[in-house]
Structures are given as structure tokens and as C-alpha cells.
């Protein structure tokens, strides 16, 4: 016989209960689900990414209409439950009553509103549901000032989101440092610094006295008497369990609805409660991990299976991109407790472990939280740490057989180690799923729920995929270049050198290519390898190049091209500008744009006009900017000693000299340089493939920066005293990269494989440095020339072979 189950509140906790019930026995209950919000269950945790614009509501829906329909759940969304009649066993919704055999109260919690004058004014918003989030997004659309009251998890996520959307945000926090419940002072300080760095103002020990305004919020008045202008006020000072229905129905309620370990109310055996609205053994709950445990227990209780809820430690993370913090356990100082602290001020890293009786009891981390789950595991399992005490703070990679491989840390985790904190999914469960055929993140999320809530464990899950599948599948580095060969890039490079293969047909033949002449994947790579190793012998093959490099212009989505002349070091003059303007007019160029690389782009040039426009530009001394090439792109400079009061060296001159030495050279991927005249770094040298920062004592040469799909700061290759040395080191580095890197690896990717130390040693060795420079010069004797000038001579190749539009029809 099917019993009637009524659920009040369609939130994250009850959603999980219903999933468990349906999975275990779809016919056990006839379910009616009330929700005050006009929608079903969504991933409330992810409201912050919705606020910041990284996700949409559609991305975070957990159960959609089709899901409820498919599982026969009767939905009464947008309807408040107003009363529970225990006598008659009825739940009264706004639109009428429903009888129940069993009832679940899952009403979550309500934001706490500080009782100050003005709290009810329009423009004062709390942060709990999608409507609040949308209200904030709408308010942010008008810009202006926002004041967020509360510097805890919710308040800071709201502040970061609003600031991302362009509002001028101030956070008011009553206590001395941010997130004081989760962070100690040092970590709170780093968090504050990061938030301030993105333009958010933080006021600690700030107490709100009133919200001022005529018919909407206009300002916040502090106890100190100060007023802060505010177009939007967000109150995020805490939550309290939503217990009104339970209290009215005469159930036992302390701070939350009191339940036993089976999630049954203490008063009425047919009424259960789950989620943030409950109180168990004196505990309240505000994070999803324990709620999911409750949900499992409750579902089993309803099916008559024994289970009991136990309170576990929880760990906290903040979902603000760029603010990496982690906290778990108890980190208060105390008698018999010992701290281990690691700080790296330069990188903004702070880690603190609290140890008591050879057990880890608490961990706070800021800046680098990769090992968080490992520490959390030690805390929960009360693992003895005597043996690793010395190296504990360096994390799992330094324990045991000292493998520095990031994967070995994951491999070393025991099966019980928790990977996904939100859903309490341990390594064993995930590995089982992978072994059962789940081969990607999507499949693992669907089968285990790991990484499907807040998503911070995604990296770990991916590493598990790698570790587990690694045995059956080839490691990614050994992947063949493409379907034409079984060899990987590294092998092809090595064999081209050692067997002195100097042409493409030689490679196809000697290395056993399976296709007659390769494909669009391997041919550009092989052409580059040959060109880099045998500059004199190998004839560059334009037909093995992507259209941009073959045409020396970037193809546009409509089939036209862009033309970017070189502006050495970003310096130009009236004559060049006039030539560019004339060309733009003469060839009807629709768009003239200043690029991010300190030069001018003529976009929308017709393919057949290319030779003519190049010839015109050539006449004014302008040459190709190689904006299309896997080769030297731009050398950005700042004004340096020529004009700037802070300049220490001639950064513009050095940039121009470098560009004149390096231009025309082909490289595995594009190469961008910059030279800044002082550490203020106006040329943004520290995110380039090679970036030079001039200082009083000389030149700091950094390499391996990036600011595209990945963002990376350069690492120091060398500090040198003279301009000539700076040039030599740069040229040697570029040549080493040309000789060794895999095609389409930017320098930073290559460096991650070979290690900066190896590169530094090669470039520092005087003999090797000289060889590299000489090899580069030899190659440049062929390639340091303007391809436009060459191609302008072959204009007919850019025209149709024949024009049949004039032929008489038959």
C-alpha cells in the first residue's frame, strides 16, 4: 500500500531525501512537495557564481519539471504551507489542504535581519535564494554603491559578485577580522588584502546603527556616527532555522526543530525534519555536507531501515575566484596545543596546522589550499602524525617515498579519503565508478555526485581519473602526433635530429607514416621541426602551413584578411601613420584597430588585394608584423629613460633591438616579448614569453609568462648587467625553445616539462650560449626578411586561376 508523504520545502536537503527514496523504492510513497519559492530544487550553493555571472540559473537546476513528472512527484511550487494540523494529519497550503501519513519539514533557514531602523526599506536585500540573487543583479546593473553588512562566507561572496558586476562595494563586519568563525587572524588578513586588491572596501569592527533613506535605502549610518552612501544594502549577518510551522504545531523546538538520530521529531513520530531547520544534539547546520548525511538517514528511516545520523567535522571553502582559503577543525590556541606555521609572503601563502597529542585537530590555509582535503582527512580520522611531523606542513607530496609528482599524492590517498566534501564521497567510491566505466567528469558526477555541488574538488576528481585510467591508457605525453603515425612529438623531434631527416618525404618514409603525406595536424609540426633543425637544407613548405601563415595574414570569419604592419617596439611616426591611413582608404578597409600589442590592425582586406596593399605599405618602409605566425609577434616597450622620470635604462631602444634581431623567426608557438624601464612595469613584461624589467643595476630577464588562456607570471632566467648580455640571454633562450619544444607548446608549457633549472644551466654555460646564438643567426640568415615583399611579387597567385563568369553559356 502506498503511503502519502508530504514534504514542506524543496531545498537541497529534501531534494536529496526524495532522490534516495525514489532510488531505493519508487513505489513506497506518493509524494507531494510544497515550496514557497516558485521553483523546485536547485544548487543553492552555486548562487554566488550566478551572481558573479559565471553561471546561469539553468546551469544550477538540480531537478527540473521533467524530473518531477518522471518520478510522479506532485509539485506545489510558489505555495507557502501555512499550518500543520497534527490532529487531522493535514498540511494546509495557501491553495488548500493535503492529507499525510508521513510529513517532512525541510524549510531550511531564514536570513537574520538586524533590527535597525530602515531595515524594511526597498533596496535592502538578504542573500538566500534566486530572487535575492536576481534582485542584486538588477541593482548592480545600475551601478553605484553597495554596502554589504556581514563579512562571513555569504557576505563576502555577495561582495565579490557585486564588485565583479561593477559596483563600488563596502563590507561592514562587526568583528576584528573577516570570517572569524573559519579563519584565524593571519588568514583573515590575507583574505582582506586580496579583496581590497580587487577594489572592495573592508571595514571591520563596524556596527550598523540604521539604514537611512526616504522611500528607499540611500545610506548606512554606523554607530561611530559616520554615514556611507548606498544604493543597495545586502544583509548577510547570519541565518536562523525556519521553525515557525513546527512551533505553531506544538513540536519541540529549541533553536531548531529537535530531532533524534533517525531525523524524527521528538514530539510526533510521523513528522520528520531535515536540513538547516533542525537541531540535533545541540548542533545547528549551515553547510550541505551534514545535510546530505541527514537526508540519507531520513530516507532509510522512512523505508524502515536502521541508520543513525552522526555529527562530523566540516571543512569550509570560499567560492570567490582568486581567494583560496580552507579551514577545518578547531584552530583555537590552547594548553597543550602546538602550531606549525608556514608563510610565503611573496606569494601570499599562509598555512597553519594545530596539533594536540600527536593528532592534527585543525588546519587553516590561505593562498594554496591544494592539500586541504588531505589535512581534513587526517583530522577526521585522527591519524597519528608523529612520524611525519617534520614535513607534515608540506603536504602529502613530501610524505613516504618523497615523490614530487602531483599525481602520486592522489594515488597515495587511502580509499576512505574524502574527495568531495559536499557530498561526502570518498576516493574508493569514485575509483569504483571509474573502474565501472565512468571515463569522464560528467559520468562521475552523474554516478557518484562527486564534484557536482560546489565544484572545488573537480581537480582532484580529474587527477583520480588520470591515476585510475593511467594503467589502461597511454599517458597523455606519449600520445601519437595524430592518426598518421604512432610516434609522439618528442620521438619525431629526436629522430629528425639523430637520423638527419631533412625533408618531409624523408620523414614520411623513414618514420613509417601511415598516410602518403600527413594531414593538417602533423604536417605543420613536421615542417617546423625540419625548419628549426635544418634551416639551410629544409625548404619551408607553405602548403604545410595553416592558411594564416601561408597567406601572411589572419583569415577572418567572412574569408577576408587582416593586415598588421610591424611597429618596432611600438614606435611609429607621421610618415608610417600616413601610409597606413592611405592604405586603409585606398583598399576600403572597414576597420582600423589599435591592437593589444602596440600596433595597428587593418581588418577586412580582400584576399586578392593583399599583394597590392603590402606593396603600398612596403614603399613607406612598413613590413609584416607576423601577427599570424607561430613566430616572433610583438615586443612591447615603455618609454623608459627617453621620457619617463622613473626609467632606469633605455627600454624602448632595447625592445626595438630585440625585435630587429628576432623578427621573422619561426618558433613552436608564438613568442611575445616586453621590456619595461623600471619595476613599475608599464609594458607588462612579467606576463610575456620573455619579459625584461630594467633596474638600476641592469636587466632582469624573466621567461615563461602567459596572459592568454592561462595567466602566469614570468620566472627569473637571469639578472645581467649589460644590454648586450640581456640580448644574448634572450636569443639563447628563444633558440633553445626552438630546438626542443613540442609544436604548439608556448614557452611556459615547455618550461613546465623540462624545468627552469635545466634551461638556466644551458643558457648560463658560456659555450652553450654561444652555440645557441650562432645557430639562431644561421637560421635568421634565411628567415630575417619580409615575407610581404616576397609575396607582393607573386600577385597573380592571389588571383583566380581563371574567370569563367564571362564565358558564353551553352
Amino acid at each position: 500500500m502506498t503511503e502519502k508523504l508530504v514534504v514542506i520545502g524543496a531545498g537541497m536537503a529534501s531534494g536529496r531525501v526524495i532522490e534516495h527514496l525514489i532510488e531505493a523504492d519508487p513505489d513506497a510513497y506518493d509524494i507531494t512537495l510544497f515550496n514557497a519559492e516558485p521553483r523546485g530544487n536547485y544548487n543553492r550553493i552555486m548562487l554566488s557564481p550566478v551572481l558573479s555571472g559565471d553561471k546561469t540559473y539553468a546551469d544550477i537546476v538540480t531537478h527540473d519539471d521533467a524530473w518531477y513528472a518522471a518520478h510522479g512527484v506532485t509539485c506545489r511550487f510558489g505555495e507557502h504551507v501555512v499550518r500543520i494540523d497534527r490532529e487531522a494529519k493535514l498540511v494546509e497550503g495557501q491553495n488548500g489542504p493535503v492529507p499525510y501519513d508521513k510529513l517532512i519539514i525541510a524549510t531550511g533557514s531564514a536570513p537574520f535581519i538586524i533590527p535597525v531602523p530602515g531595515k524594511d526599506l526597498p533596496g535592502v536585500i538578504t542573500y538566500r535564494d534566486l530572487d535575492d540573487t536576481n534582485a542584486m543583479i538588477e541593482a548592480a546593473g545600475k551601478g553605484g554603491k553597495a554596502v554589504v553588512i556581514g563579512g562571513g562566507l555569504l557576505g563576502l561572496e555577495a561582495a565579490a559578485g557585486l564588485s565583479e558586476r561593477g559596483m563600488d562595494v563596502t563590507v561592514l563586519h562587526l568583528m576584528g577580522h573577516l570570517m572569524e568563525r573559519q579563519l584565524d587572524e593571519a588568514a583573515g588578513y590575507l583574505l582582506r588584502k586580496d579583496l581590497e586588491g580587487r577594489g572592495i572596501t573592508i571595514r571591520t569592527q563596524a556596527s550598523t546603527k540604521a539604514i537611512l533613506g526616504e522611500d528607499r535605502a540611500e545610506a548606512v549610518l554606523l554607530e561611530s556616527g559616520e554615514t556611507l552612501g548606498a544604493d543597495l544594502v545586502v544583509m548577510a549577518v547570519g541565518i536562523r532555522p525556519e521553525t515557525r510551522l513546527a512551533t505553531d504545531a506544538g513540536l519541540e523546538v529549541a533553536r531548531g526543530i529537535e530531532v533524534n538520530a533517525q531525523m524524527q521529531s521528538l514530539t510526533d513520530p510521523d513528522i520528520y525534519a531535515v536540513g538547516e531547520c533542525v537541531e540535533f544534539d545541540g548542533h545547528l547546520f549551515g553547510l550541505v555536507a551534514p545535510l546530505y548525511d541527514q537526508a540519507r538517514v531520513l530516507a532509510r528511516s522512512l523505508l524502515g531501515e536502521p541508520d543513525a545520523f552522526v555529527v562530523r567535522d566540516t571543512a569550509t571553502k570560499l567560492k570567490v575566484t582568486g581567494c583560496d582559503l580552507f579551514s577545518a577543525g578547531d584552530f583555537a590556541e590552547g594548553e597543550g596545543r602546538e602550531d606549525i606555521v608556514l608563510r610565503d609572503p611573496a606569494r601570499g601563502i599562509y598555512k597553519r596546522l594545530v596539533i594536540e597529542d600527536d593528532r592534527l585537530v585543525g588546519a587553516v590555509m590561505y593562498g594554496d589550499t591544494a592539500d586541504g582535503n588531505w589535512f581534513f582527512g587526517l583530522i577526521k580520522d585522527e591519524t597519528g602524525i608523529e612520524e611525519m611531523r617534520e614535513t607534515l606542513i608540506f603536504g602529502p607530496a613530501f610524505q613516504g617515498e618523497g615523490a614530487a609528482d602531483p599525481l602520486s599524492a592522489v594515488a597515495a590517498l587511502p580509499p576512505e579519503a574524502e574527495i568531495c566534501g559536499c557530498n561526502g564521497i570518498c576516493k574508493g567510491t569514485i575509483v569504483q565508478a571509474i573502474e565501472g566505466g565512468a571515463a569522464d567528469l560528467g559520468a562521475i558526477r552523474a554516478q557518484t555526485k562527486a564534484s557536482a555541488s560546489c565544484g572545488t574538488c573537480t581537480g582532484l576528481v580529474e587527477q583520480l581519473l588520470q591515476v585510475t585510467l593511467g594503467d589502461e591508457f597511454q599517458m597523455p605525453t606519449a600520445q601519437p602526433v595524430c592518426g598518421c603515425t604512432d610516434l609522439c612529438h618528442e620521438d619525431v623531434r629526436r629522430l629528425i635530429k639523430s637520423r638527419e631527416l631533412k625533408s618531409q618525404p624523408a620523414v614520411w618514409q623513414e618514420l613509417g607514416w601511415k598516410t602518403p603525406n600527413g594531414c593538417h595536424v602533423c604536417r605543420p609540426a613536421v615542417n617546423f621541426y625540419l625548419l628549426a633543425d635544418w634551416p639551410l637544407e629544409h625548404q619551408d613548405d607553405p602548403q604545410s602551413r595553416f592558411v594564416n601563415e601561408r597567406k601572411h595574414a589572419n583569415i577572418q570569419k567572412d574569408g577576408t584578411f587582416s593586415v598588421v604592419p610591424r611597429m618596432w617596439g611600438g614606435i611609429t611616426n607621421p610618415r608610417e601613420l600616413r601610409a597606413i591611413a592611405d592604405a586603409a582608404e585606398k583598399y576600403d578597409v572597414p576597420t582600423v584597430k589599435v591592437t593589444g600589442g602596440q600596433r595597428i590592425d587593418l581588418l577586412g582586406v580582400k584576399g586578392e588585394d593583399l599583394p597590392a596593399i603590402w606593396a603600398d605599405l612596403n614603399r613607406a618602409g612598413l613590413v609584416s608584423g607576423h601577427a599570424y605566425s607561430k613566430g616572433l609577434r610583438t615586443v612591447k616597450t615603455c618609454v623608459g629613460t627617453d621620457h619617463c622620470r622613473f626609467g632606469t635604462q633605455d627600454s624602448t631602444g632595447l625592445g626595438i633591438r630585440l625585435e630587429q634581431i628576432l623578427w621573422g623567426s619561426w618558433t613552436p608557438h608564438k613568442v611575445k616579448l616586453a621590456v619595461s624601464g623600471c619595476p613599475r612595469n608599464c609594458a607588462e613584461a612579467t606576463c610575456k614569453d620573455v619579459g625584461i624589467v630594467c633596474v638600476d643595476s641592469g636587466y632582469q630577464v624573466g621567461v615563461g609568462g602567459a596572459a592568454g588562456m592561462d595567466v602566469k607570471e614570468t620566472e627569473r632566467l637571469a639578472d645581467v648587467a649589460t644590454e648586450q648580455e640581456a640580448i644574448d640571454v634572450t636569443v639563447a633562450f628563444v633558440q633553445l625553445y626552438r630546438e626542443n619544444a613540442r609544436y604548439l607548446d608556448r614557452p611556459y608549457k615547455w618550461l613546465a616539462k623540462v624545468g627552469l633549472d635545466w634551461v638556466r644551466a644551458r643558457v648560463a654555460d658560456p659555450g652553450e650560449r654561444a652555440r645557441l646564438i650562432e645557430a639562431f643567426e644561421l637560421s635568421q640568415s634565411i628567415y630575417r626578411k619580409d615575407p610581404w615583399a616576397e609575396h607582393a611579387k607573386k600577385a597573380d597567385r592571389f588571383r583566380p586561376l581563371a574567370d569563367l563568369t564571362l564565358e558564353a553559356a551553352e
Partner: protein
Amino acid sequence: MSWIDIGHIDEVPLHGARIVKTRAGCIALFRTAEAEVFAAADACPHKGGPLSEGIVHGQSVTCPLHNWVFDLNTGQAQGEDGRIATYPLRLEEGRILLDGAALDKRRAA
């Protein structure tokens, strides 16, 4: 059949292409080997990419915009639901000849 002389094979780069303008749009000539040329539509059925700018390999061409690969014998795209029109072509002592009747049919179609 009415064969029209288009030009000499050496005017098309090896593993490259040239286009021929017709009243119904451009046709591309792909030179796949020393003495092998194919004629096919120049526009990619995906998003109109100019196939004559693609990389020619084996008897196939890869579209420069999003890498669809077309077999020049049949016009069929590898693993995609798409096909380009192909045209009869003859090589006579290095001269490339196209069939005017086939080109006209293309205009009528």
C-alpha cells in the same frame, strides 16, 4: 561534354589550390600530387570556409576554419553530415580542362 581549358597544372602549387570564378560561385582546384588535380566547390558546407585555403593531404582537404576534412573523390566530409559538389576534370599534357556542361548544370541547380 564541352571541355574548357583552365590553365597549366604548374600554376597550382603542389599540395595547394587555386580558385576558378564561375557565375555560380567559386570552384577550387586542388593539386594533390605531381599530376593529380581535383575540382570541387570552394565553400565549406559548415560555415562557408574557403576550402582552397585549407591544407591538402592525401586526396583530401581540411577546411581552414574548423577543420572539417573532405574526401576529394566523393566530396564527403569525414565523420560529419556534409558534402561538397565535385566536378569532372581532365588533364591533357599538363593542361587542366573542366566540363562546361557540368558547370552550367551547377548554375541551373
